[in-house]
């Protein structure tokens, strides 16, 4: 199935997506992996900081805030 992929930072608040690809390298990539952001993982965009960034995502039951720099490097397909 070829679904449309978007960077995670473009996922509207309140919607869900599946991780397609991590475009991060090195330590940031390993951090995301540790949090369970592996391919096919389901993620929900939950809330935006009052200052505009970061955005908190629900990842495997935990609320994790990511800055735009990282979330724009995570490709997801909305579900």
């Amino acid at each position, binding site marked *: 199935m070829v679904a449309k992929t978007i960077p995670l930072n473009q996922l509207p608040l309140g919607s869900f997506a599946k991780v397609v690809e991590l475009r991060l390298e090195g330590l940031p990539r390993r951090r995301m992996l540790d949090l369970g952001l592996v391919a096919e993982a389901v993620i929900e965009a939950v809330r935006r900081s009052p200052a505009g960034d970061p955005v908190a995502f629900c990842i*495997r039951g935990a609320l994790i805030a990511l800055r735009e720099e990282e979330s724009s490097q995570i490709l997801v397909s909305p579900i």
Partner: protein
Amino acid sequence: MAKCSSCRCCSKVEPIGVQEQFKIKLNSPEQAIIALAGNPNVGKSTVFNALTGLNQHTGNWPGKTVSNAQGQVKFKDKDFLLVDLPGTYSLLANSVDEQVARDFICFGHPHVTIVVIDATCLERNLNLVFQVLEITPQVVVCLNLLDEAKKKGISVDAELLAQELGVPVIPTIAREGKGLEELMQAVYDLCLGIRQTFPKQITYDLDIETAVNKIEPQLIPLINGFVDARWAALRLLDGDQTILQQIDIPLVHKIAQETRMYRHNGFLRDRIVGNIYARAEKIAQKVVKNSSPKIDWDRRLDNILTSPIFGFPIMMLLLGVVFWLTIAGANVPSEIIANVLFQFQDYLSTLFLAWGAPAWLHGVLVLGLYRCLAWVISVMLPPMAIFFPCFTLLEDLGYLPRIAFNLDRFFKKAGTHGKQALTMSMGFGCNAAGVIACRIIESPREKLIAILTNNFVPCNGRFPTLIAVSSIFMGGAVAYNYSTMVASATIVLLVLLGISTTLLVSWLLSKTILQGEASSFTLELPPYRRPQIMQVIIRSIFDRTLFVLWRAIIVAAPAGAFIWLLANIMVGNQSIIAHIAQWLDPFGRLLGMDGFIILAFLLGLPANEIVLPILIMSYLATGSMLELDSLDALRKLFVEHGWNWLTALNVLLFSLLHFPCATTLLTMRKETNSWKWPLLAVLLTTAIAILVTFTTAQIARVCGLV
């Protein structure tokens, strides 16, 4: 798991320094070491405190477990030493705390490792469990936070989970003490060999397994009985260089080199972690039951506390309320304590007189040492005993990460790490603790910025000065009914100024000597938790209030005696202190203060707590008043020495911005391994403090405001 005596290699792989690094102190050789591991925010510290009975009054600040806590537990006939490891998501040595945790589980040879896991997000927690299981089979899983899970409509089948993992799984609600008896029983059984575990390890993708099968047999003769060979093979395959520091054997280095050929098709780590998560997902599907969740209070609360409209006002309001409570609540107890202590001073004086002690001895010990102590205690204890519990309450509630979430963008703009908001918050307690907390920041550049700027949030040693001065001059300038409110507002403004300075200086540093972009970070926003009142009180009073007070006392006592001598030894027609103050006076005037104030700040270097007592003592020595038992008396004393609102304002500003105390500087030296950075911190802060106070003084004078 003693090392074997026969093989050559084991003598080489003595766990160098791991036990020393952790400062493990066993009461007896029979005592068993228990490691406590887990993700951050799973209630690990609650388990630790519940098991060790809150006897551990080690400095309990966030990030504290980067250096670990230890505690004694007795269960049945056996003594255990419980070692609290840093909270980590993984043991793949991505950061210092992960490496610390891994090294301890691996090379510190604990008899049993307890992995505390969060029932509400099982998959991510199982990731850590599987990583621990690869290192050691001696594992007990503590399935914690079942109360929170229940609220969220999540139930976990512990027995089924135990079957899936092959190790005991004990359901607990640590904050209510539920399940801890069973947990210790499982640890006990495992320790004494009454029970055995049969951990079911992860099977990785075929090519990974093939590679492991080639490497593992080569490692077995080299590291047998020291670390698990399969685990070591996986780590070498993953390209992990850090374990070579612990297993420093030439042959192993060579094997590590050879693993390169297995890494040709990239992203090996992705697949290793992916395999673990795939298994974790499968298990979670089996053992977790989700019923329809009730109202999600966390999200509702977050909707308000991090709302675009209310987020920032609520932050300031909370800050204001905390200060208001501190100022309003501390007044009366401060006066009572002062009365009691100063009455005792009279009693002491009578005693000295009755003994016929020489006047100078009475002066040094009673008028110097004792009076300074009495002042420090009566002024510092009540506000701290209110401020610290309030602060700990917010911390326990889970509000601090929300502050970091709200403020992160500003820190990013300043080119620094988002967690700097957390280390900054810690600085409110104690800047030295704030500097230590900077360990949670991995990037060395951002860590240095956080360390250098930590001093711009006023620590608890400075709050009494800030509170007293703003109560007298800012609060005193308005009607009595509003004075507490105005004083609190002044302090909130000062704190905001401190935060702005932090951001500005951070930005300047990252544009100049510490250039670079903000590095990646992830910030977990844990669920809000009902604070445990008893724990909050005990922790904030014993670990924080008394800790800080004690530090102030040991500095204040000798300082009091010393100042008394300075104030009473005459050279020519005036005392030494008057000479120095006179010499400093022109400089002080330039900054809108006077020589005594500058001297007090300088002499207050050992601890900021004593700045005000020093000032009072030197004024008293040169003034007409002898007793000082209320803020009103203090006001009279200051006014008598020529204070006006500008003096007060600049004392507040100088106190906020000036050089860090000696303890903080020493801590900086320790954390950065160089005198360069503490020195820079002194220059930077002092320059800013001088510049700001000079400017306000000149503006006020030019505009004819004073």
